[in-house]
């Protein structure tokens, strides 16, 4: 056998067949099926310099965030678990004065670093530090193309211009920057404006149609959701250029057993070292400082085993019994926090699935007419 290398663009990161099929999606599917974690997402602080009213974070009163030395201990355990991607998130991760010490500790352990930041603190000095660190990518929350709505969403006057400058500072060093825009009723008409800004800056942009409840179940962030009328348009062909979805494709559950990678492909941690099956599903599995052998714990944890079992049941029960189940982008974590049961359909998912299913049927009809 000759040594070979398969090289492909990072396409879909989705194991259920919605992404472009290639060696990478095959690997993700294997990661899901064999509970082989590839990503650790660590919210290293809940401190933040923005005041987004739709933020899902819920700091625990009186709890102490881990020190740098404690985080280094945790990072070593996560590396031994086999994760290759380390996502440093928050809160706002750059609010930690030791952010770059943490990031370098991860880099030295062989992680590909991703950073989720609001970009507000990225001046030229910070941008140069990022250039030295050379993260795999930096994802910046970008809330609109209009400074007024942007600042209204962050609660910080002047944040639009400062974040924009932060992105420019990073791009001046040719760093890979992705923009992420949660769609709300305040910015729903600005998505193409955001896309244009992203193109000018040389950034990829993703639009997130899902506003979630807070981690403690508080549903007040849902008041900011985009209107149903807009979501109808967003999932229609009108916005196909932004959703990167020329044609909605049904789930392919033949490749993977579970509805998603929760408790399988990702481990999520909070600033106190507690870890969870994923960032959305906040069932505490353990604390990184208290678990000696994380690899063994990962396989035997009753919490993780139950989460995996439920994630396997959902495609066979909840989605099978729902007429648009094949077009559902389901999150068990949101289902649990919003309805009390991770198996329950929740309003947003019903709407999105129905629109995507209708669009797929419409495209099928058009194609059929063309073939006649």
């Amino acid at each position, binding site marked *: *056998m000759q*040594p070979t290398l398969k090289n492909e663009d990072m396409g879909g990161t989705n194991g259920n067949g919605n992404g472009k099929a290639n060696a990478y999606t095959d690997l993700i599917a294997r990661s899901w099926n064999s509970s082989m974690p590839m990503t650790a997402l660590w919210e290293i602080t809940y401190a933040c310099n923005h005041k987004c009213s739709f933020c899902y974070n819920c700091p625990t009163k009186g709890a102490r965030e881990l020190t740098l030395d404690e985080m280094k201990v945790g990072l070593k355990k996560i590396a031994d678990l086999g994760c*290759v991607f380390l996502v440093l998130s928050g809160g706002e991760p750059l609010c930690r004065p030791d952010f770059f010490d943490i990031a370098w500790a991860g880099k030295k352990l062989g992680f590909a670093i991703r950073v989720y930041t609001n970009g507000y603190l990225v001046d030229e000095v910070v941008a140069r530090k990022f250039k030295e660190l050379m993260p795999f990518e930096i994802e910046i929350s970008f809330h609109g193309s209009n400074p007024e709505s942007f600042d209204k969403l962050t609660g910080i006057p002047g944040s639009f211009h400062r974040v924009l400058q932060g992105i420019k500072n990073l791009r001046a060093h040719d760093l890979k920057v992705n923009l992420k825009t949660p769609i709300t009723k305040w910015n729903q008409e600005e998505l193409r404006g955001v896309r244009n800004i992203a193109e000018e800056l040389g950034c990829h942009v993703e639009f997130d149609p899902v506003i979630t409840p807070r981690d403690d179940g508080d549903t007040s962030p849902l008041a900011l959701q985009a209107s149903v009328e807009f979501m109808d348009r967003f999932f229609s062909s009108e916005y196909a250029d932004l959703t990167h979805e020329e044609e909605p494709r049904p789930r392919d559950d033949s490749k993977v057993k579970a509805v998603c990678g929760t408790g399988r492909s990702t481990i999520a941690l909070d600033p106190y070292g507690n870890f969870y099956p994923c960032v959305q599903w906040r069932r505490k599995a353990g604390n990184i400082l208290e678990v000696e052998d994380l690899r063994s714990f990962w396989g035997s944890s009753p919490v993780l085993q139950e989460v995996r079992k439920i994630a396997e049941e959902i495609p066979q029960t909840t989605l099978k019994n729902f007429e648009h189940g094949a077009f559902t982008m389901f999150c068990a974590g949101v289902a649990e926090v919003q309805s009390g049961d991770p198996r329950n359909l929740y309003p947003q998912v019903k709407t999105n699935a129905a629109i995507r299913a209708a669009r797929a049927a419409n495209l099928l009809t058009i194609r059929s007419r063309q073939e006649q």
Partner: protein
Amino acid sequence: MSEAPLRRHPDAASRTYDGEAFIVVPGRGEYNILNPVGTRVWDLIDGTKGVTEIVKVISDEFDVTQEAAEADVMSFLEDLRKHQMLA
């Protein structure tokens, strides 16, 4: 063949899953997956071994002639260089 020790690119992040190395190089927006022989070569690129030593290990472990191993390893190293996976 150069006897200089081969080094991985300092920004390359890698882990091995099911016997296949998964390698990400920041700045390129792409990933690389190596087959088991490629993974063995990648493991041997540890900053201490030169090409000759790596070829000998591959020849011994995979029961191929020195000439065949050398041709395969040299071609593979060229691929790694092309994708900026070597220092």
